[in-house]
């Protein structure tokens, strides 16, 4: 069953967040942030403690929990800070720390594209729009933000609704029925999938085979029609033709030559999801058209006005031309 401590911690951080969202004094703010962050830290510490593993497995999980804590704390700042520019900057911190979580989950390509696209492109757009459409404070030099940034709308009911969703979503990581076996990270399956992905990429396969043995000239299919046979010790056997041989012989690739995350993602993108890739391009193109249409200044000129405008411009040009001549 879902442990009681999880619901207690949820209620604690919900109360802290609700207090943070309501307008109040500095000391209460401090206490509320301590309470909310303590609730989140409690959940994370309990999960880390529950593994009871040797210390070498604990270190990456500790780093993961730290990144998780930073990202959640700055997400809280995003929704509680009174100055929109600081909200956007705290969102950059959320993106960077969750990119660290992605790296720890061995999704390097997604992590760095997230930093480039989110922190580099989208957030810059947000900052520019904030500068374009920012209201100056009521009197110059006051540190108070404008009224609609300071006073939130219905914080208590929003927090209750949100944390009910959190209690349902987050409860799913705990084992509910003892009969269900816990899921495990299947290393064997991962290695097998990795070699199978490599077999889809002939050029990379030849390059990896050359790394293992420089005299390889070609990789050929094995007897069962596959390029790669995976061994139980995670190495793979290829049939290769060497420079001074006419018949294919076996070559063993060590697990260190598995394809990296970036090439696997790229391969999946073009072999399994080519139509989605094209559709993504169309979506971006349409968004660009839409942004251009929206941003164009709408000026209504009748035909006569346009003619008059053109005539005045032409007259001015003639005048200046005459002056220079």
């Amino acid at each position, binding site marked *: *069953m879902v442990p009681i401590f999880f619901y207690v911690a949820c209620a604690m951080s919900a109360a802290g967040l609700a207090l943070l969202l309501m307008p109040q004094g500095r000391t209460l703010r401090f206490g509320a942030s301590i309470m909310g962050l303590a609730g989140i830290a409690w959940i994370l510490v309990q999960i880390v403690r529950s593994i009871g593993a040797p210390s070498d497995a604990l270190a990456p999980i500790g780093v993961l929990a730290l990144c998780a804590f930073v990202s959640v704390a700055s997400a809280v700042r995003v929704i509680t800070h009174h100055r929109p520019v600081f909200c956007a900057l705290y969102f950059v911190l959320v993106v960077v720390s969750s990119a660290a979580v992605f790296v720890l989950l061995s999704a390097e390509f997604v992590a760095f594209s997230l930093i480039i696209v989110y922190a580099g492109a989208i957030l810059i757009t947000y900052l520019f729009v904030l500068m374009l*459409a920012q209201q100056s404070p009521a009197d110059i030099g006051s540190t108070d933000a404008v009224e609609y940034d300071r006073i939130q709308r219905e914080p208590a009911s929003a927090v209750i609704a949100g944390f009910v969703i959190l209690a349902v979503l987050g409860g799913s990581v705990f084992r509910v029925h003892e009969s269900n076996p816990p899921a495990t990270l299947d290393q064997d*399956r991962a290695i097998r999938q990795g070699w199978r992905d490599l077999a889809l990429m002939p050029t990379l396969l030849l390059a990896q085979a050359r790394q293992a043995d420089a005299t390889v000239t070609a990789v050929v299919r094995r007897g069962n029609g596959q390029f790669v046979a995976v061994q139980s010790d995670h190495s793979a056997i290829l049939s290769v033709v060497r420079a001074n041989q006419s018949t294919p012989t076996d070559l063993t690739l060590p697990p260190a030559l598995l394809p990296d995350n970036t090439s696997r993602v790229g391969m999946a993108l073009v072999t399994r999801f080519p139509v989605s890739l094209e559709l993504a391009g169309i979506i971006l193109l349409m968004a660009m058209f839409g942004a251009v249409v929206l941003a164009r200044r709408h000026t209504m000129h009748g035909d006569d006005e346009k003619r008059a405008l053109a005539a005045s411009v032409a007259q001015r040009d003639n005048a200046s031309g005459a002056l220079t001549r």
Partner: protein
Amino acid sequence: MNAALDIGVASGFTLAVPAEISIALMISALLFTLGIIGFLCRRNMIIMFLCTELMFQGAALAMVSFSRMRMDVSGQVFVIFILTVAAAEAALALGLVVLLYRRRETLNADAWSELGES
């Protein structure tokens, strides 16, 4: 084990997924929740859209952690499509926000609570 942190049955829980996955899932749920709360609470239109980006972030984190659990890269490919949609949405939504700001000279979403001709 430190018994002071446990209350009642708390000591005896087991995780359904490995610990690193469950931490990632937990923060993905938290980011999604904070995004919902921010969208409901904040009255600044730009911050409301920023909170939808927070929700995208939570969804992407869940995708990547399940992709790690199942050892399948399709989850990461899906995050790339999420990025595409987020970029398109940001471009369009911010263009709309600038248009709305030109009409009412305020970013307050409550200024638009009565629909109709401005």
